[in-house]
Structures are given as C-alpha cells and as structure tokens.
C-alpha cells in the first residue's frame, strides 16, 4: 500500500471539514476523489501534503507515519501536490517555475532529465521556456503547474482539479497526459469536477459528501452507480 489514510479529522476553526475519512492508494494506481463543491476534496489533499494538520487520524506513506511530518519533508519523501487554481509563480519564467518544482533536489543532471520528461508531456512549455509564468494563458499555466508537480520526481502526485478552466480539447489532452505520467510509474490521486472524465482514467474512486466518504469502489462501478449518475455525472 502506497498511501494509507485512516480516520482523518480536520477542522478549520470550528468547521469540521473532514469527518473521519479513510482510504488508501496502491502502488501504480490512479484514484479519484469526487464530490460536490465544499465536500472537502482540497482539504484532503492539503492534509496529505502537510499544508494542514489533522486533529486526529493518521496518514501513512510507504509504511511510514507522515501525519506530523512538515510539508517540506513530505515533498522529499515523494509526494507532490499540485494545488487548486494553478498558483504559478508569476514573476518567474517557465524554466524557473519548473526549477522551483525541483527545489528539494540537488543533482542538476537528474533535474534536467525530469525537465526533459516534462517537455515530452508538455511540448508547449519548451517553446515558452523564458516567458514569465504570469503571461501564460490559463491552459498553459495549468500545464506548467502540473509539470512543476512532476519536477520533484514524486512517487505520488496529488492533482487538484487539473482541468479547471480548460477548453474541451485541452481537457482531453491533460487527461491523456495524466494517464501517461501514471503509466511511467507515478501513482495519482485525482480530484476533479469533471467526474466522468476522471472516472474513465481511474482504477478506483471515492465519493465525498460534506466531509465523509459515502461510496467507494472500482471506477466503473462508481460510474454506473445510479446515485452517482444523477448527482455528479449529470446523466
């Protein structure tokens, strides 16, 4: 088991955002987390990557307890978080943004290899290497954010709404790229509004409702679940 989350409780002040969530990810899987706005999907990712601290419960990664490990150490252990809303470093160039993603690594040759890999997935970024991040189009910024997330050479990537604000063609492209990143051995925890797309590339999925997991199973089963169909897939 790559990631094991047990009985996680997270609060924002008095708001009980995650109410005892448990789930796991196996090595090599793509797992989707779906749910309505405000269900707690982003909160879950932030807790795993150490940006938030849970009040109780635990997170184990590769068998080690990382519940109280600082965020910067969690990156070093191989979890990369691509936060919601892109969060590109606007005054840095594309190259500098990517290098920022490799902040925890030292070997320049290895970093260059990772960068080349990002360019295979996102050739557009290579063309715009010296452009400032803030001047990229929305879609390009999303590509940069995802590419930057690959730069720490993670074994698990947490993707928070990678298709947000993209045109339909780009959405398809980005899901293909996610599949490709996964096929090269990186496990993925995917949070998406675009549930149908997410389920079509996932192995398994969890459905989150106001801080609780209400359904879990194979992506295909979830896709065919009548409740999910009416609530999240709009069919």
């Amino acid at each position: 088991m790559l990631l094991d989350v047990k009985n996680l409780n997270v609060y924002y002040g008095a708001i009980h955002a995650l109410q005892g969530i448990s789930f796991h990810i196996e090595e090599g899987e793509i797992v989707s987390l779906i749910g309505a706005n405000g269900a707690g999907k982003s909160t879950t990712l932030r807790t795993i990557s150490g940006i938030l601290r849970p009040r109780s419960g635990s997170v184990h990664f590769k068998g080690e307890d990382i519940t109280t490990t600082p965020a910067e150490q969690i990156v070093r252990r191989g979890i990369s978080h691509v936060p919601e809303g892109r969060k590109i470093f606007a005054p840095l160039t594309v190259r500098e943004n990517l290098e920022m993603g490799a902040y925890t690594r030292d070997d320049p040759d290895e970093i260059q290899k990772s960068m080349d890999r990002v360019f295979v997935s996102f050739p557009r970024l290579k063309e715009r290497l010296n452009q400032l991040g803030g001047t990229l189009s929305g879609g390009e910024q999303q590509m940069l954010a995802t590419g930057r997330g690959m730069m720490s050479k993670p074994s698990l990537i947490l993707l928070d709404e990678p298709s947000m604000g993209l045109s339909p063609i780009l959405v398809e492209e980005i899901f293909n790229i996610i599949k490709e990143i996964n096929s090269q051995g990186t496990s993925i925890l995917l949070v998406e509004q675009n549930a149908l797309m997410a389920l079509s590339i996932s192995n398994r999925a969890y459905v989150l409702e106001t801080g609780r997991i209400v359904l879990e199973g194979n992506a295909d089963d979830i896709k065919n679940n009548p409740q999910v169909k009416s609530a999240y897939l709009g069919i």
Partner: protein
Amino acid sequence: MELGFLIGSVVKIGAILAYLYGLLWVLGHKKLWVKIVGVVAAFAIVQLAFTITIGDSTILNEFDSGLVFQAASMTMIALGLNLIYGFNGQFSLGQWGFYGIGAYTAADITFRWINGDSRGLLVVGIGSILGAVMILGIQKWLSRLRGVPVLSAFTFYLFGSVLVGAVAVVIGNALNPAISPLLGSAYEPGPLSQGIWLQIVYFLAIIFAGVFAGEVSFLFGLPVLSLGSDYFGIATLGFTIIVNTLMLNSDTILPFPEMKGGRGMIGIPKLTTWFWAFFFMLMVIIIMRNVIHSSTGRTILAVREDETAAKAMGIDLASTKLLTFVIGSFFAGIGGGVYAHYIGFLSPGTFDFLAGFNPLIIVVFGGLGSMTGTIAASFGWIFFLEGLLRVLLGQMGPDAPTWRFVLYPIVLLLLMLIRPQGLLGTVEWGFLKAPFVRPRENQHTASDVVEG
C-alpha cells in the same frame, strides 16, 4: 539666484541618476577589468567632486556632501526593506529600529575605543560571533527534533542569547585591562586608536553592528513572523517604538551613560569617509543582488507570490522569511553604523517611528521589488526633499521648509496615481538585471497580471 539654483539642482539630480546608472552598468559588465576600473572611477568621481574647488566652493559643496552620505546610508536601509517587503512580501516597520540599533552599536564601539575602553568592541564582537554560532548550533539541534513549537524554540534561543551576552561581558571585562593602555584617551590617542588600527576598528564596528542588528531581528522575527503579514507590520512598528524608548533612556534604564539618553550621544568619531560609505553601499548592493539572483532569491519571491504553492514545492516558509528578515536588518544595521560615523552625533529623535516611514516611502516610490528603483529613489528623495525643496523653500522664510512635508506627500500621491507600480516598477539596470535578458514587454504584462 533662485532660478540658477533650481536648474543647478535639477542638473544635479540628473547627474546623480546618470552616475548610478553608470555604476550599475560597469558592475554588470562582463569583463572583470572593466568592472574594477569602473568602480574605482565611480569612487574617484565623487571623491574629486568633494575636493576640487571651483570658485569659492567645491563642486559638491559641504551641504551636498552631507546629502550624499545620507543618501548612501538610506540606500542600504531601503534596500534591506525592499528585500523584506518588496521581494518577500512581509510588511515591516521595524527597519528604522534596526537602523537605530546599528547606529548606536557601532557608535558605542568606536566612542569607547577612542576613550580608552576596548569593551565595546570586545563585548559586541565576541557576542555577535558567539551569537551566530549559538543560533546555528541550536538550529541544527532543533532540526533533528521534529515539530518543536515556535515558542519553545524561541525560549532556547533567548536563553542562549542571555548566556552568550554574559560570556561576552565576562571575557570583555577580563581582556580590557590588557588592551586599554594601548588606547590612550581622547586627548592623547594611544597606538591602537589612530591610523590604520582605528580604521580597522571602524570597519569591525560597522560589521558587528550589522551582525548584531541581524541577530536581534532573528530573535524578534522568530515568534512574530508566523503571525502573518498585517500583524507582523504592527509588531514591527512596536519594535521600532521599543528601540526608540530604550534610546531615550539609555543612561537610566540601560547601563550606557555615554549614550546620554534623550540628550543625544556626542563625540562619535567622524570616521565615515566617502571611501567607506561607497564601500559599504557597494557591499550591500552586491550581496543583495547575489541573494536575489540565487536559488534562495527565487525561494524568497515564491513565498511572496503564493505561500501555499511555495509550501507545496517543499519550501520552508518560516525559515525563508526569517532569513530574509535577518539579511534586511543586517543591511539596516550597516547603514546605521555608516550614518553614525558621518554625522558624529546621535539623537533618539532621529529614530522616532514616524521617521521610520521614510524608507517605506522610498521603497514604494522606487518600486517594490526593484533594487534599481530603491537606489535611485534613495538618492533622488534625499536630494529632492532635503536638498532642493529645503533650500528653495528656505528662501521664502525661516519656517517655509516645513512645507516640504506637505509637498512631498502630494508628489507621492501623484506618482501612485500615475504609476502605481512605483517609479521603475520591476525594471532593473545593468548589474541588477536577471542573468539572461527578458523581453521588456513581458515584464510589463507580468506586473499587470500580478496586480490584476
């Protein structure tokens, strides 16, 4: 006369900007010999302007020379603030307090030295070196224990500082009798309190004053930086007020009779020559530029841009902010030491918190996140406000110069309306430019995006 003076002043300000541009240009030149020759020439030009007489005064008269020194120390202070506020996004009103700490610390060292007392240098020197060792040591030790709360860490550092201070005082008192006979007195300087030795002591005094200011900022910043930017601003304002109060009562609640509290400290040796002011200003510019262009600099920027994203990259927010704060305060301390030894007299009134807004205004005026803007604005501001306006208004009556404090906020207001990103936005000249050239249009749209 008035028109001539006006034209002369405008020409002077233009010449200063051209001079700064030239200095940054030669510093950024690829060839090392051009850099060296250029820097020596830049030093010599001003030195000559101080000494060559035309008619009945030197090219830069005594009044103007004073402005040059003020502008040089303001440059160091404002650059430090721009690093903290402009580049790292931490709104600080504490810069003036660190400037004051630097000024009084450096002044006390040299004042005691020429009066036959080596303890100033010994205690501050040993204290700041041991303090640095202590901070690095505790930091290493704490990084091994995981999840130590900030306040517990702070307690360790505070305890360490008190210990280091006590050790430094004991060593200082023990060594002083051996050294003080070599110092003589203010009337009969001994071998160590003149010539090259005095210059060395001056240099050390300024460096130690900077390091001491940096260490104080570490202790203060550690608990306070985690408050978030607005609260941090309030806390740093409080810091400047505390420092000012301590200065006002330095001879009563603090054991420093030579600082004379509210009456002001007199008799500080005027050791700041143009050589030293230029040297320290250049040092600050080069250190800051290299920090900003290093990977640490990008980390500093990333924290300003987006804390969540920076954290997700694996950046340690707290230590990045702390490092920036310490470097910025170090610059303020250096600027303070240079100022004290130029002016020869320190009064707590100079370090009043209201005056502490000056570097903030300069940084905003020049452009948050532009070193060039800060340097140009420091010189421009001093020469405009203290030079041009003061003299011009002075001819209209003895109280008229006070109007400049009405005029310059209006100028500031107009600038903010016309160019909200500051005089130079994020544009940099010569040496301060990023290592590779970025297309200019990109920079403009980028700053629009940031603000939009």
